[in-house]
């Protein structure tokens, strides 16, 4: 299993500013994932963060808006840049644990972001 700590748990930010969300895992993992859950919606994958390489972004998400760092095997950050009210969402960090054919995903508690 894996225990994931996300900070901050929630924040209210002014439009045009940026927020960096931190994700700390209690074990070394190869891949970390960042998701967004907009109000009343399901989870959408933003990007996959591998240690030592650039993050891989899903369609509709770009590095300039959501820069990601992955300095080591237990830590990652996601920055939401130049925020607008449409960025108000829950952002979740996730890791996969187990053999490739038996991977189980664990999630942080999420960061509830409100942009005003």
């Amino acid at each position, binding site marked *: 299993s894996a225990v994931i700590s996300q900070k901050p748990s929630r924040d209210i930010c002014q439009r045009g500013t940026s927020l960096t969300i931190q994700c700390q895992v209690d074990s070394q993992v190869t*891949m970390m*994932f960042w998701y967004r859950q907009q109000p009343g*919606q*399901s*989870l*959408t*994958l933003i990007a*996959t963060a591998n240690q030592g390489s650039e993050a891989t972004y899903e369609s509709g998400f770009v590095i300039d808006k959501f820069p990601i760092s992955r300095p080591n095997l237990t830590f990652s950050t996601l920055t939401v840049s130049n925020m607008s009210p449409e960025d108000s969402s829950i952002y*979740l960090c*996730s890791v*996969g644990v187990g053999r*490739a*054919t*038996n*991977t*189980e*995903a*664990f*999630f*942080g*508690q*999420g960061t509830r972001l409100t942009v005003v």
Partner: protein
Amino acid sequence: AQSVTQLDSHVSVSEGTPVLLRCNYSSSYSPSLFWYVQHPNKGLQLLLKYTSAATLVKGINGFEAEFKKSETSFHLTKPSAHMSDAAEYFCVVSARGYGNKLVFGAGTILRVKS
């Protein structure tokens, strides 16, 4: 590509009656399938998973799901609903051929009436 369709956005049952949450998937590779539960203002919790072993999977809190390849379905059931089961449930698919990325269904909100 892979996708998940949860056939009901809302399900309402009476306490003590059976629960059925329906999920159909699409994947070009052999899938792994999961059900997650999200209680209000809480994180996601894994209920159960299918990863190419037994097709009938038992999870926590009395939930189980059956993988039916011919029907591309993975419906979640529970014989008797409890008030504490009220939450949102997500069906999720992943496959090694897609880098084990998780694709979430839209979610089903389960309401349990007393």
